[in-house]
């Protein structure tokens, strides 16, 4: 599976993956908002098995990229030192490959490198053991608190945070240490298990109001102005 930055043209397929896998969904505009505000932060996993090698030879039959996983991420609008994972998901058919972890590592690295963010936050369903395992054990997130009835169906969420400053330090050392980067950490069977079923979400706000409240307030003002005002 190819792990690369999300492009605008991926968005319909990212939205499809989200709608197929998760109960927390967004308008397409909300994905655009991410891609156009923080183009460095969102990544996709693409199943290239039927694509790349065949695509170049026959452009007419080339299909759109098959998105099998994605991470949609942003920087907190009120606090530019904090990143936030809006949504993360891997198709059930592509679990156990460690894709969620790979996607998360790319996104958090960019938060740290480009935006100089100090930490990154996310929400996860309290019942989602697999995802909690990935976040806490493999990625080093810490539980901050429980947010009661965070999800539309009434389930509670754990709010989690990862300290990017210290996470960055470790990785930098590993990278400098002869490029031996994270071998021991990333190898092994549990990678897949942990990535089994993950998600995370903004709820009531993120769905209906998502774009309105987040984009339009920010974006629309100019078009609202009247001549000479």
């Amino acid at each position: 599976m190819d792990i690369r930055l999300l492009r605008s043209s991926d968005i319909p397929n990212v939205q499809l993956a989200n709608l197929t896998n998760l109960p927390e969904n967004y308008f397409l505009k909300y994905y655009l908002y991410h891609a156009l505000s923080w183009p460095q932060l969102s990544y996709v996993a693409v199943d290239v098995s039927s694509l790349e090698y065949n695509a170049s030879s026959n452009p007419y039959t080339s299909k759109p990229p098959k998105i099998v996983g994605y991470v949609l991420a942003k920087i907190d609008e009120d606090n530019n030192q904090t990143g936030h994972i809006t949504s993360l998901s891997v198709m059930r058919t592509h679990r156990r490959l460690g894709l969620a972890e790979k996607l998360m590592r790319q996104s958090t690295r960019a938060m740290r490198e480009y935006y100089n963010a100090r930490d990154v936050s996310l929400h996860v369903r309290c019942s989602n053991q697999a995802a909690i395992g990935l976040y806490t054990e493999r990625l080093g997130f810490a539980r901050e608190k429980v947010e009661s009835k965070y999800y539309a169906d009434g389930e509670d969420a754990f709010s989690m945070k990862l300290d990017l400053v210290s996470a960055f330090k470790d990785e930098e050392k590993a990278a400098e240490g002869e490029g031996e980067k994270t071998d021991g950490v990333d190898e092994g069977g549990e990678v897949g298990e942990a990535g089994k079923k993950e998600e995370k979400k903004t709820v009531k706000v993120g769905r209906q109001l998502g774009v309105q409240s987040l984009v339009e307030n920010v974006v629309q003002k100019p078009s609202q102005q009247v001549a000479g005002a």
Partner: protein
Amino acid sequence: MGASLPPKEANLFKLIVKSYETKQYKKGLKAADAILKKFPDHGETLAMKGLTLNCMDRKSEAYELVRQGLKNDLKSHVCWHVYGLLYRSDREYREAIKCYRNALRIDPDNIEILRDLSLLQAQMRDLTGFVETRQQLLSLKPNHRMNWIGFAVAHHLNSNASKAVEILEAYEGTLEDDYPPDNERCEHGEMLLYKISLLEECGFLERAVEELHKKESKIVDKLAYKEQEVSLLLKLGRLAEGGKLYRELLPMNPDNYRYYEGLQKCVGLYSENAQFPPDEIDRLDALYKSLGQEYKWSSAVKRIPLDFLQGNRFMEAAENYIRPLLTKGVPSLFSDLSPLYDHPGKVGRYSGATYAQLGAFNKDNRPIPWKHYDRRGQYDIALSKIDEAIEHTPTVIDLYSIKSRILKHAGDLAAAAALADEARCMDLADRYINSDCVKRMLQADQVALAEKTAVLFTKDGDQHNNLHDMQCMWYELASGESYFRQGDLGRALKKFLAVEKHYADITEDQFDFHSYCLRKMTLRAYVEMLRFQDRLHSHAYFHKAAAGAIRCYVKLHDSPPKSTAEEDDDMSKLPPSQKKKMRQKLRKAEARAKKEAEEKHEESSAAGASKSGKRHVKPVDPDPHGDKLLQVEDPLLEATKYLKLLQKNSPNSLETQLLSFELNMRKQKILLAFQALKQLLRLDAEHPDSHRCLIKFFHKARSMAAPVTDTEKLIWSVLEAERPTISQLHEKSLIEGNKIFLEKHKDSLMHRAAVAEMLFVLEPDRKLEAIKLIEESTNNVMPKKGALGPVGEWKLKDCIAVHKLLGALLNDNEAQLRWKVRCAEYFPYSTYFEGSRSSAMPNSAYNKTNRNSENGSANHSGGETADSLASNGKLEAFVDLTI
């Protein structure tokens, strides 16, 4: 503005404007009314009141007021601007542009209006206009960064990247050396990267590299910096440097395929089709082995070599890659390996050797080789493998999903849906399994059940179903297709048009970003987004939706809804006096229903409005079943709207041209139909449907009356001149052409069926011969591979299409029955053919087990299901629609 008012009212007017901008509409309305009390004819106030009401969902009043205001004060740029904003809010961009232009005639240097105009021009891709407006804005306010950037982007979009570079460099010239301040570093870096990408686009590669290096310290996005640099180096042929850079990029993301591809290019080991001479394979093998040592976590580094390795080295690499995934039971393994499948000596060989050792399942009972048999059409073996596994570990959900998929391929859609439902019930919290199940239910035409199942995940407060609001297009498409198969054109159209509407919304979505991105400076992402939007309607889902809608309209044209005709028919049996009464009764009932619906609508919107000033309750859908959609005056005209979009956005799709052919033949647009035919021949002259269209067209042309009008004469002469250019015909007769096509493709069922159908069209008295042509087709056994059993070449969906052809067109029930019996042999699981193992048969294995499901037990009627296999099939959908 508001100048003609005394000070108190002038202040009130400012308050209206401010309230509008801050969305405090009630406050604005109050201020407007206060002014209007004293100056009831004040144009600008009337207009602003209208604009405010528009935001409060009082559209018709809004238009009335704005128009009244404008009439009272035609010389006010405010009134014109407001009128434009009103149109803009209704997406009437062309009208809005006209209004802005009128406003600018009065006040040519008005920044706000110019800016609004420029946004519309970007949205409409009026690029020349966009450049002009942006230039004007820049000359009015050259001290605004955004105006420089906007002018540059405008030139770039208008295909003048080098001009854009000049503008950006001029802008840079206005900056101090120590620019940017800390809080603008990201934005400035983005601007530099944008400029460098423009240099690359212009082909100024050396200059781009130079600029990149010069500005390195000011570019914050180090990853983008490296990717940009390596792309330039590769184009410049500076491969050694490029290779070095790729080796810096790989540790950052060792699963990025483009890095590997790039590195291969840099070391001179790249080939588009992954075919290499032996010595290069050796070098590639060594390269990937060493990379594999470095990036142990990467799966790409292990997977890519499987594409080029052969023989024992392939076996060894495959073993290393596949074995751990096999043990873990990675579900995607087989789709991952599928491109290697038909490669002689690759997976075929691997599977022969390894599957034998492994057995059907490894010790954890992971479903591994079923797909192998499923792919080959050996459904009984695939199913028995899965059943074995289910028996062993009945708790693995995926086994049921897989079995469901195999059954679907085998032709038992009802059983497939029931199994998917069983899987779903094993983990009600997993939406993926729910989606899978909903998909199967829709394939089996259980639409009501599917909806009930899908909404388990989409309830949002009082809202029962927000699948539509959330733009869940796959679902809408699949239900639309199911309704179409079931002949419910109203509901089908409703779903297809809903998808079309989503695409219109997505186009609209970009509007806000025209200004947002200029401020945020995410310019590369912005331009990429515009390019994506430009191609949006070539997206597969749009294509399917538009094609579906066109089919609905064509069917509607061919067999208009019986309502009126039938009603009259019913009534004609009544004596005239009663007829009149009956009509009155009907009319009254209709009016009553309408009134009730309206009242309900008002109630609900009032209830919503009272709470928070904004409506939260969705308006009641006035046409839930799409009945009104069926009442179009000219279905073919409607269809043409969507055809135009297909022709513009996917002209190279066979389906587009087939639809164009069918539509234009019905509209008697002979030359347009001929154009579609020529496109079909260009795309795939050997396709059975292209052949059908060719024969049908000239058959029809032959039967046209001799030309009378000038137009007819013109058409006639064009066809006269064109026919000899069609190589399939030349001087041959249609009957000969048909025969030659048969000889060319005599081993293919679908080609024979097309020839048979055309034979019947050309010479209806040779019907028996046509049927014989079909029945004498043989289902050849596919060449054997490995130790696997024999498999016939025919596909289920083709056989179903032939079955329908025998019935609908050739109208021979006996032949149809013979065909059915024969195909039931080939496809024992097919419900359509009532195969012996399908759930359509009372004694099938499937029906012996009873099952309960959570969400109401599935309705397993096998009946209509098989039609779905023809879902988006080409001409099949037209089989019963003769021209």
